[in-house]
């Protein structure tokens, strides 16, 4: 293919950065979780890009580590999303809010 793998990596970096920004900036817990997903996706992308680079460098020999690991990451992301959301529900029940600003229980 014609798209150079480095560009994929840069794209992954950008997406990751956006996810991080959102993680810091948003108040809403659920949005924050979504940003986490975004970051995971970016990581996925970078893995695949690297795998592609290796494949091309090895003269077509497929490097399966990338995709395998990407699959694992997807699974883990799903798990984490599920658990996170369950926590959000529990949080909402106790505090009636999903705003991070008001959930400063760890204060001091």
């Amino acid at each position, binding site marked *: 293919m014609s798209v150079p793998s480095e560009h994929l990596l840069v794209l992954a970096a950008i997406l990751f950065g956006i996810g*991080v920004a959102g*993680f*810091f*900036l948003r108040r809403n817990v659920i949005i924050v979780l979504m940003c986490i997903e975004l970051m995971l996706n970016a990581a996925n992308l970078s893995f695949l890009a690297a795998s592609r680079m290796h494949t091309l460098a090895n003269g077509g020999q497929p490097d399966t580590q990338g995709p395998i690991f990407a699959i694992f990451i997807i699974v883990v992301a799903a798990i984490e999303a599920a658990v996170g959301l369950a926590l959000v529900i529990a949080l909402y029940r106790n505090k009636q809010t999903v705003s*991070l*600003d008001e*959930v*400063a*229980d*760890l*204060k*001091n």
Partner: protein
Amino acid sequence: MQSPQGDYGWLWWIPALPLLGSAVCALLHFLTLRSRGVFAPKAGGHGHGGHGGHDHGHGKHGHDDHAHDDHAHDDHEHSVPAGIGALAHPIAALAMLGAFILSILAVKDLAAGGEQLTSIESSVWHWIDTGAFNIDISIVIDRLSAVMVLVVTGVGFLIHVYAGGYMKGDAGFAKFFCYLNLFVFSMLMLILSSSLLGLFVGWEGVGLCSYLLIGFWYEKGWPAEAGQKAFVMNRIGDASFLIGSFLLVHLFGTLDLSDIAAAVQGKLGEDGVSFQLLLAGLLLFGGACGKSAQLPLFTWLPDAMAGPTPVSALIHAATMVTAGIYLVVRLNPVFAASPELMLVIGIVGVLTAFVAGSTALVQRDIKKVLAYSTVSQLGYMFLALGSGAFASAIFHLATHAFFKALLFLGAGSVIHGMHHEQDMHRMGNLRKYMPQTFLTFLVGSAALSGLPLLSGFFSKDEILAHTFANGGVYYVLWGIGLLTAMMTAFYTWRMVALTFFGPERFDTKKFQPHESPAVMTIPLIILAVLSVIGGALSFPPVFPAIFHPEFLHHWLHPVLQPGEELIAARGAHALSHTTEWALLGLGSVVALALAHAGFRKHMAGIAADEATAARSPVRTAFLSMAWGLDAAYQKLIVGPVRLVALMISAVIDGTFIDGFVNGAGEVALSFGSRMRAMTSGNIAAYGLWMGAITALIALIFVWQR
């Protein structure tokens, strides 16, 4: 130095006995304190050990300004029973007696050895052993230290006996004897050491004990200041001493006293050595000035009268103040090598004698008269040293120990009997009440003033004769010396007249003066006898041979030989017999005349003193303050030094050091409070921190490639 024949290992018992005595007395003191309940825990109590807590609350008098305050009230606790502490007296006195007996035995052995045996020694301890520089601590009895040790232990023993009576009832009875014995130990170390370093150890030790003993009644306030003054002035001298000894090490590579003395002659030929010797001698002499209270470092001695009278007798008449003389005689070749240095020593000595003598003329406190007299007589000893008459200096040292100790103890007896009155203007006619004290005091005064045939006469005359013999500028020194002798006779008999004769200037209804107990008067009698016969140590050479004239000189010859050879090389001076007799006669006449004058003028009472004061108040004030030297020191030295110290403590200590330390605390505190703000519970903030650190790690990671 000849090697000793026989085993003299027991020599070190001489200083060890007083040391042991001191330790035992310390223990007794501790026990006494315990029996008084000082160490018992009590609510709200001082828990402060010491003199039974009898605080007079005199407070700070601002004594720096008047060194000559009439501290006429030698107040101290009288009535405290000593309990087990009373044992301290016999123990301390016995230690002294033991040391004295051992000294006699040692000297006997030395004397039996004849001309060949110059010393017996016993090595105690190898202190420093570096191959190139070795210091051995050993006890040496040679001819010079024989004389010194007999004087120190003998007179010391008598004073110890006396002190048992004088200090009776004092709350710190055992402590006193502890200090006294410690002092004697240090003094013995000083005299008996083979090495300059051991001497210095003793030197410092006596300084310390002097401080402790002067300030013995520190609750009164001013004795503590006096002790401090003595110590600091001594210290200045000590610094000079140290630098001088460094120079000696540099020159000779050793601190062994006899080695140095032997090596001086040989070294003199070399380049620059004579100047270095001059410098070393000058510095050592500076140390001697501090210890022996010469100009300019003498103002501590009158203040030292704040201590108990036995202390004044022992330390400031007979022993510590003679350490400087001993030093010079011991290292006589170092000093004799430079005639300029000898002249300086002579000048300093005679000037000190003059200034102190003139001050004694107008003192009212009986102890102060004696104090200035001591300074004056020490000046005579230095005059002797400066004239090359080393043996005469030692002779005068010994006789002075006898009669000055006698006078001090006698004064103590007077004070004791007068219930601690020290001002002569409030005494009078005491011969009626204290006959034994009176008679012995009379003998002592006669000796001091140089009345013929007593010990003081011979020693003083010998000094003046040697000074005269040197000729040239020494004639001037002789003249001043003669003047001082006149003053000595005058003030001595003024003292006698005011104290023991004339109308009674105290209220007989309030109290009756009483004679002192036997434990105090017997030492007086013994010392009186010594003061009379002490002259036999060194009759003038013009006396017939059966009197063994100049016995002391012959005895000390082996020690003095190097120095005397150096002096003789510059030209010998000898007096014709006629001149000698003339000087002897002059001395007698002068002493008798002035003694008579002084006595007559004052035997009627204090009218003469008051008249003098009225006629020339300025001169009286000037003299009574030791020519204003003390005040000068206050203004020029003590004041600025205190100011600098204050500045340093305020600025450097306050700003920098405190600032630094407090600042460290402040930093920790502020840092902590800022850290606390971080635990905000704000999750996003936590996340932010995590992200930031991750970025940092990533950065480092990338940077590594």
